[in-house]
């Protein structure tokens, strides 16, 4: 029994939507639902995990705007029908794992039957950011519940507090303008990898498994330095770790990597998901690929 990913999609920005996280998330969500043969109204829960968005919007949750634009039960409540509940999660490149953990709880308790997790990041542009480092990408995951022995295992976490020393993003007033700025340390990849390796080992240990029992390791972020450092700390060849093909992807990077991985694996394959990000926070979980196809883009 577990939460299974019914479908996942990644949407890359074109010239028109490269500055709109909202449009990217909506495009990814709509594509995901359409290709899964689901109606927007089927979605009970919509979680957005993207961070960098249009106008650096603080309120409402971007998820509410995404819900309206996707058309998931946006109308006023009425009898004998069900609505959709939306909110945002922020946990950097680990947020997809957090969202999956939340979805898993609500599916397990039969509170919902179907969840859509969307994420996107885009440079808000128009002088609102400085040296924006991430690619404009949107991604979506459609989740439901399987009574079979597939899906998501327990999600493990570790925090190694660094007070934002390794990676930090802030919006602050400078020269009378509110600007999004970034800072990172040269040690960032190593620190993220150390946390990622630690949590991966505890995840495997609890399941009484070793790395040789895992068919594929899917990791986020997609940075080459992080991937190499993670492989070194886990003492495995770097090729065993699948990451997104664009190392500048941010919150969508785990979905993109998972999309590449599931192309190559058969049902029942065991995947180790490892995500690390600012904080330093890292999470890991085992995922057993479901029988029905998970179609990548």
């Amino acid at each position, binding site marked *: 029994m577990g939460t299974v990913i019914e479908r996942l999609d990644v949407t890359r920005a074109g010239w028109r939507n490269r500055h709109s996280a909202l449009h990217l998330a909506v495009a990814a969500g709509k594509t995901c639902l359409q290709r899964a043969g689901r109606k927007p109204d089927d979605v009970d829960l919509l979680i957005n995990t993207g961070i960098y968005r249009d106008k650096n*919007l603080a309120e409402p949750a971007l998820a509410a705007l995404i819900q309206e634009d996707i058309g998931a039960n946006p109308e*006023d409540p009425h009898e004998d029908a069900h609505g959709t509940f939306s909110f945002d999660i922020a*946990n950097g490149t680990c947020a997809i794992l957090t969202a999956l953990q939340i979805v898993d709880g609500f599916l397990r*308790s039969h509170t919902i039957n179907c969840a859509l997790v969307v994420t996107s990041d885009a440079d808000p542009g128009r002088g609102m950011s400085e040296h924006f480092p991430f690619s404009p990408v949107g991604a979506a995951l459609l989740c439901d519940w399987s009574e079979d022995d597939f899906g998501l295992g327990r999600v493990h976490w570790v*925090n190694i507090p660094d007070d934002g020393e390794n990676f930090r993003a802030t919006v602050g*007033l400078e020269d009378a*303008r509110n600007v999004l700025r970034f800072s990172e340390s040269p040690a960032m990849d190593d620190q993220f990898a150390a946390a990622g390796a630690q949590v991966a080992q505890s995840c495997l240990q609890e399941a009484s498994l070793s790395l040789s029992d895992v068919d594929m390791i899917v990791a986020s972020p997609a940075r080459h330095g992080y991937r190499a450092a993670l492989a070194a700390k886990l003492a495995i060849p770097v090729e065993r770790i699948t990451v997104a093909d664009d190392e500048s992807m941010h919150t969508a990077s785990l979905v993109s990597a998972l999309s590449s991985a599931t192309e190559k694996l058969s049902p029942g394959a065991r995947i180790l998901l490892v995500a690390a990000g600012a904080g330093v926070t890292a999470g890991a979980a085992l995922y057993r690929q479901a029988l029905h196809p998970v179609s990548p883009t």
Partner: protein
Amino acid sequence: MPKHWLVMEGQGPPAPFRARLAGAGRHLPATVLTTDDLMATTRHHTHIDLERLTGIYERRVSIGDEDSYSLATSAALDCLDKAQQQAASLDVVISCSITKFRGGLTQWVEPTMSSAVAHAIGAEKAVTFDLSNACAGMLTGVTVLNDWIRQGTVERGLVVSGEYISQLGQNAARHIRNIMSKELACLTLGDAGAALLLERATAESGGISLAGFTTVADHSRLCLAYPKGHDPGARMFTDSRGIQRAAIADTPLLLHEVLEAAGIAMHDIDHVITHQTSARAIRKGMAAVSAAFGDSPRHDAVITVDRYGNTASTTHTVALVEELEAGRIRPGETIALIALASGLEIGVVLLTVDEDLVGRYGHSD
């Protein structure tokens, strides 16, 4: 099986556990800003009687000495102190604020506020993440944590928020010209930190009996807040009448669902704590609900907005602590926490407090 519009936790198969409220804490800045003093700072002659319009006569504000991070941290420590619980025992810390100001008016986007607060209070083993759902943030966090506790995923967690949001009022004071301004709601804002500690209890004990939420997304653009122009922090643009119209139209059906699912009537609810936007709006909304049901909760809706203003995602907890400290909530009584927030988010958390919790505030049955 009848369908519910609300996404409702508590309607599935019996869960092994229940979540009880083990502590509620808050932190209010010491500085009081009266409505008269705030309105005296408006750049234009607005001819607005804000106190008459909203019932708010003062709010607490940070004068730069506190920010979202410090407010949240102080509230978290107050909550743990009330519950006589160690931070090291927390399995999860969820930060739910709209504002994430740290070091003045610098909004921290990454890393998370939750990881900073967890580290500050010594919750080293806690899972951390931030949840954002406008003024419904804390109750959304409670809904997520309640689900995890009921399923046995975690044993104890803290839902926390620090809102240093009064800067939006100062920004609005520079732009508002008259009562039709979309920034009028900013003048109601006050600062506060709040925290709720939930922990595992047996399935038969009191605690959270039901949590239900929905997002009426057709109204998602009725209130938008973002950094704009040369003003520090952010500015907020609200169609307050549109929100109130939608809320009054949509809430009765959703409350019917909650009461039906919980198997109780309106008069079985002892206390109602709604989101605190304005005293007038709360009274008008509750009158509409009572008229729709032909029945009322046992006590009038709690109002703290007159003293503290609208403290965004923290209002329910600020009001809950006020009532607990005043001894107005007794063991075994049922409280309906009603969220109404930009999105449009509408949610209800039904909660019964036990003798242990009430006793922490110096009162007993």
